[in-house]
């Protein structure tokens, strides 16, 4: 594969990664810790919202993030012709 193609693939990977890591940071460090008291005034069923993020929600988001990354990267692999098949 050409160097230019690989470079473009890498840039696309970095962009995807950046978006997902921003979400990763937001659901855990922001929602679960920094803004936990603020969010605790809202409710989600029997949970205070901040408490839900820190003990349940963040984990669900983490799982989702990895599957989205895996799915999008497989598409990028194909698009740039760098998949392993």
């Amino acid at each position, binding site marked *: 594969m050409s160097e230019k193609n690989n470079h473009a693939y890498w840039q696309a990977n970095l962009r995807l990664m950046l978006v997902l890591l921003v979400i990763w940071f937001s659901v855990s460090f922001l929602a679960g810790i920094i803004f936990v008291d603020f969010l605790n005034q809202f409710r989600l069923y029997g949970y205070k919202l901040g408490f839900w993020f820190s003990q*349940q929600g963040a984990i669900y988001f983490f799982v989702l993030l990895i599957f989205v990354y895996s799915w999008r990267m497989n598409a990028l692999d194909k698009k740039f012709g760098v998949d392993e098949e």
Partner: protein
Amino acid sequence: MSAQLLTYLFVGASFTLYIGIAIWSRSSSTKEFYVAGGHVSPIANGAATAADWMSAASFLSMAGIIAFEGADGARYLMGWTGGYVLLALLLAPYLRKFSKFTVPDFVGDRYYSQTARLVAVVCVIFISFTYVAGQMRGVGIVFSRFLEVDINTGVIIGMGIVFFYAVLGGMKGITYTQVAQYCVLIFAYLVPAIYISIALTGNPLPMFGLGSTMVDGSGVYLLDKLDGLTTELGMAAFTSGNKSTIDMLFITAALMAGTAGLPHVIVRFFTVPKVRDARISAGYALVFIALLYTTAPAVAAFARMNIINNVDGMTYEDAPSWFSKWEDSGLIAWRDKNDDGVVQYRGGNALQPSKPAFTGERGSSGERLLGNSSSAGENELYIDRDIIVLAHPEIAQLPNWVIALVAAGGLAAALSTAAGLLLVISSAVSHDLLKKTFKPEITERQELLFARIAAAVAIGIAGLFGIYPPGFVAEVVAFAFGLAAASFFPVLLLGIFYKRMNKEAAITGMLTGLVFTFAYIAYFKFVSPADNNPDHWWFGISPEGIGTLGMLANFLVSLTVCRFTPPPPAEIQALVENIRVPS
């Protein structure tokens, strides 16, 4: 059948299963011994990673910590799961493409330096031994509590089992045993949680039961009721936290980066066939882990409520059998401060110092007398956090087979983690020290033999740690994460994402992170434990969270040194280009 008999039956059956798998999956080459031949399916690897990762601490201790700390327990829940996002996005696919056997392998090759490799080997061995000591102790404790054998006998039985499948099967044997162990441990964790969730909230899924209303018809949400109960008794409300925001941030970050940098977790991603498998496998691993981690806070809240409801205001003479059983093993203690024969459970420590010291005599109600002095508050009860998971099924009066199941699950969690760690130690010795450094002339057969010998020796040493536990096991576990975060994580990350990163920067960076983190923890844990409080911590960061600062120091030093030293050779830059692309 009695719980005791059932426990023997379940533990015996699970051990037979593990041994059977070990015989079926023997290793015959170094590639099979180190990375299971690279043929493990992503789902199997996910389950094995989950079992590898969830140790006795996750299974036995975490829910207990959350039960008593409430909201602050979130640092473990987020820290020990969020690290997988870092692993899947930033490390696993690229290390899989690099396709070698160990983490020091990557460090040595990427930084074209035997010194860097040796520093990495030292880190791997130190991190893994601190971790494994706790697992062996966990095995001994489960044996002694449930099967009423001596702790040392328990440790030796555990060593024997691990010896059998780790030495014989290497990574291949360990991987498939871990898949079985995952099934045992998750079943053992979920069954009692589901029972209790139905009993308290009517919701069969504990993670949703936690957010449901009580089944007593009051229509009150469980967490609100628990907040009410705890504040009424003068304790901190369950859903409120005590720790400072900055400390929570730093501890959570250290656990996340530490998770992503732990060698026994990383090496699991060398066992799958392709780069795309490494990505999705991290996802499966986290699904399997999340099943336990989203259940743990529910178990914690249910246990706290059951304990308050069952124990506070109970007459000691009418206490259920679990109460006196755990009192006999020293994990529950009661001092009748007001001589009314009734247990008062309130906020604050009951005793001073807080751990009970029994005198060997009995008081007027039949309770074990204590040598401690009383603390000022009204609280009369000491409960060790570690009993929450083990005792809860008894407290909630679940059937005997559920109680027996928990013992088998705890053993599965401890054994699977111990085996993964021991393999990492043995491959660091036979592959990185012998083959790659001191005795490059050995054949593959000899290397495999050395790997088996190293695994056997490592098991022996780990067993000794279990039998003669250094008094500071709990303290040093904090080291493992802090050190992994401060040493490996930045070196691996920069090695992939920063082509200009060179060996001078990597070595100085690793040493900076290592020495700084080690010194800070050692100072507060061993040199001057009396100062271990927020007034003396830097920026209010506890030793638990200092790995994050060590990691930042590592990044800073690496990037600075890198600017003033020559770039890596062209073939290393080409290597970095190569691992960034799957094909």
